[in-house]
């Protein structure tokens, strides 16, 4: 808890250029804690001739402010648009620093932030402590539709996918070939599932695998390009397949929820960052549905 003190709160954000005018701020492959202040996420921005487009705003007011300062350190262009990819707190709680700029999101994301934003903000205080000081939920005011946006010489294709949550915005910059995959894709970091529909998520991954792009920016984990750019897409799908297979097999075999907390795990699964914690969370999120399907098949007569 002492580490909260050092949190006078400098995230030391260093935008890294991954394509012309395109920058990523990489978070750590960890769970939220008092040391990382919630910076476990990748955010990004695109500098165009008309101004800057920001993709996700990080986990706190301070992060948003420091991100804005980092952008100002790179370009004099004004920020003209902010996009929130989905409703998870590490992707939108920095909105406060961009309140004077139109913030856009898919309708399901806006609704989710409206209804659950305060709860996320409270739980982030518990997990990241003083880094969250003064953070307030700012609901995106602009509703995004799938389609193509022309901004200062960049053609941005907005894809409305779902599965990680009920609304996941993926952005393909057709001009640079950069795919901002949001949390549909994790790279060597165990995917999180609090709002997941695994079947829909796998469909969204299939869709990404069929798209032309050159550089992949996952929601969490390293940026990939070249031959390796599809690997995180495949890896995320493979993990979700393993997870749903493990849970449905256990439910069908009559295992209780607590008995699935410590499964036999292949090395490629166990080697992903934050595996034990995220897996146990996923059991709580996903097992009840598999369990209920298994129990519904039983022979019961009410008397």
């Amino acid at each position: 808890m002492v580490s909260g003190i050092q949190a006078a709160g400098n995230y030391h954000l260093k935008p890294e250029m991954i394509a012309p005018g395109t920058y990523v701020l990489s978070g750590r492959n960890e769970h939220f804690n008092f040391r990382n202040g919630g910076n476990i996420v990748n955010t990004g921005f695109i500098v165009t001739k008309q101004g800057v487009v920001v993709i996700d705003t990080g986990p706190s007011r301070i992060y948003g402010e420091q991100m804005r300062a980092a952008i100002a350190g790179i370009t004099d262009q004004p920020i003209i648009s902010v996009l929130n990819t989905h409703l998870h707190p590490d992707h939108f709680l920095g909105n406060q620093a961009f309140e004077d700029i139109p913030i856009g999101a898919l309708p399901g994301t806006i609704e989710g932030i409206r209804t659950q934003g305060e709860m996320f903000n409270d739980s982030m205080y518990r997990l990241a402590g003083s880094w969250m000081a003064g953070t307030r939920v700012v609901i995106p005011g602009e509703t995004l539709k799938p389609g193509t946006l022309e901004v200062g010489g960049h053609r941005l294709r907005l894809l409305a996918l779902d599965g990680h949550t009920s609304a996941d915005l993926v952005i393909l910059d057709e001009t640079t070939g950069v795919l901002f995959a949001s949390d549909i894709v994790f790279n060597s970091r165990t995917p999180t599932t609090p709002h997941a529909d695994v079947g829909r998520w796998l469909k969204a991954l299939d869709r990404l695998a069929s798209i032309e792009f050159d550089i992949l920016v996952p929601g969490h984990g390293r940026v990939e390009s070249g031959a390796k750019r599809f690997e995180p897409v495949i890896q995320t799908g493979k993990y979700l397949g393993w997870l749903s297979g493990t849970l449905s097999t256990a439910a069908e075999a009559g295992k209780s929820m607590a008995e699935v907390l410590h499964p036999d795990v292949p090395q490629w699964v166990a080697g992903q960052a934050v595996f034990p914690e995220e897996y146990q969370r996923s059991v709580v999120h996903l097992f009840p549905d598999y369990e209920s399907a298994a129990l519904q098949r039983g022979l019961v007569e009410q008397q």
Partner: protein
Amino acid sequence: MNTTTAFLRKCLLAAFLICQVSVVPAETSPPDPLNSVMWKEMHETLLGGGPVVFDERVRVLVPGDAEDSMNVPILVDATALGNVSRILVFAELNPIHRVLEMEPVQAVPLIGVRIKVQQATPIRAAVLTDDGVWHLGGGIVDAAGGGCTAPSLGSANQDWASRMGEVSGRLWPGDEHSRLRVQIMHPMDTGLVSGIPAFYIEQLEITNEAGEVLTRLFLHEPVSENPVLTLNLPQAESVVVRGTDNNGNPILAQVRSGVM
């Protein structure tokens, strides 16, 4: 550590059991491996200060962190002990400590269930053997909290009443025993939310075709809404689940081995 060693030595000198564990007289508690501030009080109030041992043969599976404080999965397994007459599960830092009691009767001394926790707490299983000694196992669950003072989803939902008491479940045949898993629709309100009185399943009895009692359960308010129970029973083709809640509403269903 030194006190433990001293206890062990005393045990051996007094020619108690073959002492892998330390049995102590009623007026003292052995050092608590979970270091809980509530342990002494729990020992007095729930176990009547009776003889206790902390015993690794009582396995309590809990997650390290309660992702959902309304639904914390636990499994108590005292199979390695034998001759168990009673199991008491309690959550020490919950406003209501008692979670459930089980009289195994003919069942394996094992139970899986999901529970509500109000904050980070030790979850403990006290297992009474025929010699009158309570064997304790446990684990600590970290939690954001609020599980006991949040209203059940059922109470907020209009049509729960028509499904209340409804049982779904399945009986899996096995080499040594049959595994029973049942879910019973019930709000399991704790009474800690203002305006919503305590309303929970109080007792359940599982019987076989011959009408013999296989096991008896006594549930309390901290058991999660729509409880899901996991039990290992003597082999049976079918069992009857019979019970009541604290308002006298009956629960009655037969579960047969096999699937639709």
